């Protein structure tokens, strides 16, 4: 016993290092594999208030851009209400979606990153405002991410700009029921790749990629992006580059979609062990 104690005391720093390192690695891998941000995030009250101050200052420099985005959205909402479904402008998605089953919670993005492999952002609405884990978030441009951690007044969201987890199952608006998967390359916050579209489909550059109706967290027809370039490589699938509709670098206003039946749907999925 005495020997063990001597050993531990002699190597106390190594043990301390290992224990603290395990603590931090646990946090890192919890985030990587389960999308759970453990203790190192600023979506709680203290960190969020710091961020809010900082974002208020930062937004001062983006005021013009923010105003222009709002103006565009307003103009699109006021524009003629026919022919909105195939409109070229993505800013008016609020017109074309069926929101009867969804409660829309407006929020502000108060912390945001775009240059990491897995980006996150913080919104200023939390469990006090009915925000739950798993809900979808869109900015005025298009789909932005999903909620992964909720606090009373703030929520942490995983951005669509992440290389690990698909946020939404997209489809091409101009085709009926053709869904694929979105993959982000990890460096350019404006572009992403659309995978899983067969070569015999007739698509062209400029087609709109929107959310499909298969998710319980997003209504149908919210823009994800537009097809920018497409090529036919060796395999059986297209190689499609899309330009993302959400401008996550500058967007400040966000909308959280809360499915009114989410609790029931989640319990059905859990009861029957369906993998969503």
């Amino acid at each position, binding site marked *: 016993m005495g020997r063990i104690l001597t050993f531990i005391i002699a190597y*106390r*720093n*190594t043990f*301390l*290092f290992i224990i*603290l*390192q395990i*603590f*931090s*690695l*646990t*946090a*890192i891998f*919890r*985030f*990587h594999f389960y999308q759970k*941000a*453990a203790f*190192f*995030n*600023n*979506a709680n009250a203290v*960190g969020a208030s*710091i961020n809010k101050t*900082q974002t208020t200052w*930062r937004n001062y420099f983006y005021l013009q851009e923010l105003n222009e985005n709002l103006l565009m959205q307003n103009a699109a909402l006021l524009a003629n209400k026919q022919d909105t479904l195939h409109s070229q402008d993505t800013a008016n998605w609020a017109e074309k979606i069926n929101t009867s089953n969804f409660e829309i919670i407006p929020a502000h993005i108060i*912390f945001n*990153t775009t*240059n*990491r*492999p*897995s980006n*996150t952002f*913080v919104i200023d609405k939390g469990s006090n405002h009915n925000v739950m884990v798993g809900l979808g978030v869109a900015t005025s441009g298009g789909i932005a991410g999903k909620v992964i951690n909720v606090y009373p007044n703030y929520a*942490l969201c995983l951005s669509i700009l992440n*290389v690990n987890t698909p946020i939404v199952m997209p489809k091409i608006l101009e085709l009926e029921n053709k869904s694929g998967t979105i993959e982000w390359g*990890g*460096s*350019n*916050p404006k572009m992403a790749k659309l995978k899983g579209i067969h070569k015999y489909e007739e698509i062209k550059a400029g087609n709109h990629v929107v959310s499909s109706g298969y998710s319980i967290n997003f209504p149908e027809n919210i823009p994800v992006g537009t097809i920018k370039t497409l090529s036919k490589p060796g395999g059986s699938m297209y190689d499609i580059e899309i330009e993302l509709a959400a401008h996550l*670098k500058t967007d400040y206003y966000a909308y959280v979609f809360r499915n009114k039946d989410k609790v029931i749907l989640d319990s059905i999925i859990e009861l029957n062990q369906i993998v969503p």
Partner: protein
Amino acid sequence: MKRSDIVGYILLFLGLIALQVIVLNNLDLGAYIKPQILVLFILLLPIDINKSYLLLLAFIAGLTVDFLMNTNGLNTSGMLLVAFIRGLWLPKENNPRPEFNVVPSLKIKLNGKWMSYILLLTTIFHFNYFVLEFFNFKYIFRIFTVTILSTIFCIFVQWIIFKLFLQAKNR
């Protein structure tokens, strides 16, 4: 350690956090240059500090910046690693001469050993950071690129800090 030194280190810590959170995170240098300046705090902690305290300080410093940047422990892990291995570069004798050795303090006399100490440990910190951040073998070349570019930029910022605040006066 003198009382004025403690104040100096607290100011250094707060200053580096402010520099990281307010300036470097908002510089928008793209996905390939992401300098993490806080490692300088661990590199400069005094030579005679108790190693357990050093590890705990590294842990607290890393936690603080992770908390502010939503990085989920990436900084904490790197800070602990640097704190653990920095002893390899420090002189073993009792009264090392600052002219020829690495003697971390708030007043530095730069020499060749200092350069390798700062360069290697900053590189190790960034490498650890980006390996854990990407954590996928298919990004191996990207990890190397980001590490090298971020380290170069970080060394540049550190050099400015050194010229402004840390240079020992020649007597």
